[in-house]
């Protein structure tokens, strides 16, 4: 008895649906319409800042601040994105924290999480020729409190250059008048162990609120 192949119809239906999912995923991901992954926030930030495509140097999930941090770089810029989940998926929060490359560069970024009343400081930067170590400290301008050492989240060498990302969280009562004006001091060593970067950073790239 000849009859049509029912099994192949089932497989064909499944494959058509999977192809549809793949096409839709590729479309929304390439156009950045829907942030499917936290790294999509970095891709959006590349467009809104104008840096062009960057390669991801490091990614970090900060549970305390409720964000994903990505550091992207190309020959023109070093870019930090903090990704949060919103109605359009993963998108960057805050403005456009960025530090131009070309020689040494460092900057910092602050997130205020209103849920847990913490300010989270991120210091990020680049050391040409590699980075053997980094030491970052939150130093209070009024020197009323002891200096707070920052945790080093990433120390990477990509394409011969070194990149670092440091973090520290400090308590914050939510009152802007009591905003703790910590100025991070960062000291980074190059591949040969010499001090390549030693400076106190000024205003943060961006101060933003979540939670």
């Amino acid at each position, binding site marked *: 008895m000849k*009859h049509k192949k*029912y099994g192949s119809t089932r497989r064909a239906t499944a494959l058509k649906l999977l192809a*549809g999912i793949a096409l839709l995923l590729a479309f929304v991901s390439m156009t950045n*319409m*829907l942030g499917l992954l936290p790294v999509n926030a970095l891709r959006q930030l*590349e467009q809104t800042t*104008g*840096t062009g495509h960057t390669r991801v140097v490091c990614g970090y999930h900060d549970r305390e601040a409720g964000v994903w941090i990505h550091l992207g770089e190309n020959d023109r810029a070093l870019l930090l994105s903090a990704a949060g989940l919103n109605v359009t*998926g993963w998108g960057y929060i805050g403005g456009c924290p960025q530090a131009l490359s070309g020689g040494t560069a460092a900057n910092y970024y602050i997130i205020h999480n209103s849920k847990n009343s913490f300010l989270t400081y991120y210091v990020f930067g680049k050391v040409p020729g590699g980075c053997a170590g980094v030491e970052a400290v939150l130093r209070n301008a009024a020197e009323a409190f002891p200096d707070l050492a920052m945790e080093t989240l990433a120390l990477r060498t990509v394409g011969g250059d070194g990149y670092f990302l440091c973090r520290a969280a400090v308590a914050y009562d939510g009152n802007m008048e009591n905003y703790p004006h910590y100025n991070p001091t960062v000291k980074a060593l190059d591949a040969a162990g010499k001090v390549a970067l030693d400076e106190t950073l000024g205003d943060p790239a961006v101060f933003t609120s979540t939670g």
Partner: protein
Amino acid sequence: MEKADFLSALAVPMENASPRELAEVQTELGDHIADHAADLEAAGWSEADAEAAAVAAMGDPAEVGEALNREFSRFWGAVSRWAAVALILLIVAAFIPVCYSCIYAAQSLAWRIDPQKPMARYFKGLDAVPLDIRMDGADGDVVRFAMEAMTTETLPDENGAEQEWDVAVIGVCIYDRNPFRYVADSYTAAQPSFLTDVPHTHGVRYSGGGVAVPAAAIRIYHVPVHRGQATVTAQYDLFGTYFTVEVPLYWGDGHEA
């Protein structure tokens, strides 16, 4: 065995098939039996005998049902069910962002086709002149100087005393070549800037308002200039993309100085 009995018996072992798939199989096999019976009837068989012979020719309904059941793969059935659910969820999740993106893209296309239209309200009462100077900005952007008018404004001089100064009002439209991509520098809006040696530097950044969506921006600049100045220099410097352009100034009669 009658046709209806055969089809009922066939269904018993076909546990992998969905009701819709089972109905499809029963319809198809029922048609086969009917066709065969019709052929036999045409050859002179009675109706009852023809149907019985056609049903008998199909074989044991339990064996046929088991053979057909093996063709309905549980794996592919489960994959297609989950894929259908995932596709629906994805379409629902993407609906709002895709709508927003399409609205922004439409706005970007409308502004690049006629940039003077959204700028018109900033040039009310002024003798505006259309411009069409297009430059390449960062990351695929186009910076288009699209409208200009000369006016006077009361501004403080270097000693703080207020004076009337000539001011060039310049409208700039910025958009990405791809209408679905965002405009660069949308957060700080620092590019382009205008260079002027007139004491007050309000013209260095845009100061006359504007409107923006993620995919395009209209910025109005008020640039203090010297009376009779022929051009004003616009400068753009963003992540390695740099240009300067001389924007001609039209003084009142529609002609360049």
